[in-house]
């Protein structure tokens, strides 16, 4: 997965900041567009799963790369 429309750097931020910033970033996207998020908080994996479940946005992928957690979320 490498295609995205907007990018959010949430590295070094603790919950709830990555979720809060993602919510704001997604609000600025059109339906069908994708946001890439990079985070370092291990709790963000569960948090983004819950976030997508609650908001109806699609968690396209969730992966760990070199200690960073990378998420791709497509706006519903």
């Amino acid at each position, binding site marked *: 997965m490498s295609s995205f429309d907007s990018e959010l750097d949430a590295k070094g*931020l*603790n*919950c*709830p*900041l990555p*979720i*809060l910033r993602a*919510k*704001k970033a997604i609000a600025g996207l059109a339906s069908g567009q994708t946001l890439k998020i990079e985070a370092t908080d291990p*709790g963000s994996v*569960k*948090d983004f799963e*819950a*976030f997508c479940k*609650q*908001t109806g946005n699609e968690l396209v992928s969730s992966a760990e790369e070199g200690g960073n957690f990378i998420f791709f979320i497509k706006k519903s």
Partner: protein
Amino acid sequence: MVIVATEASTKRLSAPERRTSLITAAKTLFAAKGFHGVSIDEIVNSVGVSPAILYRHFKSKDELYDAVLQDFACQRESYVDTIVNSAADFETILRGITRVFIDSIVSQPDLLKIEMYSLLEGHESHSDFFLNRWKTFTDYIEFSLNELQSKGRLSNIDSKASALMYQGMLREVLLLKCLQPSEHLKDYTLQELLDKMISQFVNSLDLN
């Protein structure tokens, strides 16, 4: 007779159940006496097993202590509901995440006691585990205030000091309402006190 009955009943526990019973007993003892104040003998006596059984599950008291903290970590508060379902302004979110954190502390007062002991004992868990929990607030406040300043909505205050001030107020309220109930504050519920405290904190920022 009592010991025999205890041993008979302990044999019925599976390995995971035994591990959980040791963690539960250790949690109560660490909360009452701190890490250094509790011996392995005390822990095994409270569960009714031999030290050998404890060492089958945990190599050392340190490892058992880590398992206790890990158990708390598994019940980590989720702020996702608060973020998804509330307005995105600074005060609303601050109130929301504070409520989630307080509910979590109230439901597991042992965690607050263990934190106090870890501070006094200088246990390394303090920075690894407890400071990380408080970072929820300090990071949120620091980041948000910097953002508000960059938008010209807040005068030039020190966001790091403000975040520390909030943490200090919150911790003091928890100590006085949960650990050492104060006669002076008996007319306020925990929630009332928090609501007033957050209002005063936000008012003092004088956001425009």
